């Protein structure tokens, strides 16, 4: 315990916290549509997966206990909140997800016109990272896990994330875009369903419902990494008030991952809290 308190006091904690990877793999949703029109109710089928190949699934993400045997992912899936935020801002949690071997699937129905936010929200999970005697970093999940002998640089963390996408039925509105106040969320002047190639979108990152003020990292990767050699990961600069610009050069689905962290005042049972947003955005041709 003395190591932890020493570390917490030192200014090196933030650097160390950022140096250690907290999320091993990317995770995302892919909606069949992000824009719909019509005068009758319509559905969108959404898939979700944990995978480093952007928008090509590798492992499922999300399940309502009706799907495939997901083995060690079951505990994680039981934790997820299956959110659909309706155009009036109402948060529903009764969407049924089903895991298959390589991805999870959900149908979401839209009756009222406006913008919907589909989310799989992972609450805080405890994790401890540490440096082993051989100099490599490792991690253990759970509160107060038993650590190997002689480890140093012990940091007690939590990670939480939102995996989301936006879908508009007829005219878009802002009821579902407005931050819920939990974790990292997207807002700003540009509507997330109004993105076109070559146009600059002006977004703003929110943290716990307010424009983010602490440092945050945003990266964007265009769909289809499996079929090109360069990953072409783009880092976006975030201003002090959380605003940032994104100018997609071509149409398609884009993966946007934003992350931030907060140092917890001690004494407490956690040193650092990590928050991530994994967002799928669709860009249309000019």
């Amino acid at each position: 315990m003395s190591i932890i308190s020493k570390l917490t006091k030192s200014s090196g904690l933030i650097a160390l916290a950022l140096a250690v990877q907290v999320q091993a793999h990317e995770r995302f949703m892919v909606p069949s549509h992000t824009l719909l029109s019509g005068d009758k109710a319509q559905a969108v089928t959404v898939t979700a997966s944990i995978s480093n190949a952007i928008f090509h699934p590798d492992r499922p993400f999300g399940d309502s206990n009706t799907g495939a045997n997901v083995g060690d992912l079951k505990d994680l899936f039981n934790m997820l909140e299956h959110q659909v935020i309706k155009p009036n801002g109402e948060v529903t949690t009764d969407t049924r997800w089903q895991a298959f071997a390589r991805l999870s699937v959900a149908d979401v129905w839209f009756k009222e016109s406006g913008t919907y936010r589909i989310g799989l929200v992972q609450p805080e999970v405890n994790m401890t990272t540490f440096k082993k005697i051989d100099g490599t970093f490792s991690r253990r999940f759970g509160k107060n896990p038993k650590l190997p002998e002689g480890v140093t640089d012990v940091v007690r963390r939590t990670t939480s994330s939102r995996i989301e996408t936006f879908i508009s039925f007829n005219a878009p509105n802002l009821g579902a875009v407005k931050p819920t106040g939990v974790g990292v969320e997207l807002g700003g002047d540009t509507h997330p369903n109004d993105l076109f190639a070559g146009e600059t979108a002006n977004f703003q990152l929110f943290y716990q419902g307010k424009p983010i003020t602490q440092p945050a990292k945003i990266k964007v990767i265009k769909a289809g990494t499996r079929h090109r050699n360069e990953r072409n990961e783009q880092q976006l600069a975030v201003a002090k008030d959380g605003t940032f610009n994104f100018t997609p050069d071509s149409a398609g689905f884009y993966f946007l991952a934003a992350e931030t962290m907060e140092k917890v005042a001690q004494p407490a049972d956690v040193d650092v809290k990590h928050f991530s947003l994994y967002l799928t955005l669709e860009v249309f041709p000019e």
Partner: protein
Amino acid sequence: MNKIRFSFALICIVCALTLSALTHAQEIKVSVEIPQIKANPYHKPYVAIWVETKRRKGVHTLAFWKEQPDWFKDLRQWWRKIGRDKTPNYDAVTGATRKPGTYQLTWDGQLNSGENVPAGQYVLHIEAVREQGSREYIRQIITLGDNQTQTYQLQGKTELGSVQISIK
């Protein structure tokens, strides 16, 4: 029928004898740089270095650095030409993934069969792929078994750095 088979076999023996007569012990040196890349998380790349005929038949693997079998297929070219069928077998040259740095490999031109590689033109292939990173694939035509000293200097752009090939 028997006669035809016999003469075919005879021709093959003659071929083999001729080829081994033409070849001699040699030294193929490859130096490969795995560049330092700022990424978080950073995963060490899977790398394969191998020789094919100009008609794209796998000849010999000089190095195969890897972790889990699930991702062998991401070394796409090596996997399709050598990896998936183990043709020719590469067990002797496998190893764990390497951290950024420059690595030297030496091959004496001997095939798994114990024979020296027949003289002629070949293509040296170098492929590297990193999880949550990019993939790079570079090639160089080389001449083997011809008593011809050669050096080549290649430069990767993403997952590979400087590559030097020297043959004598």
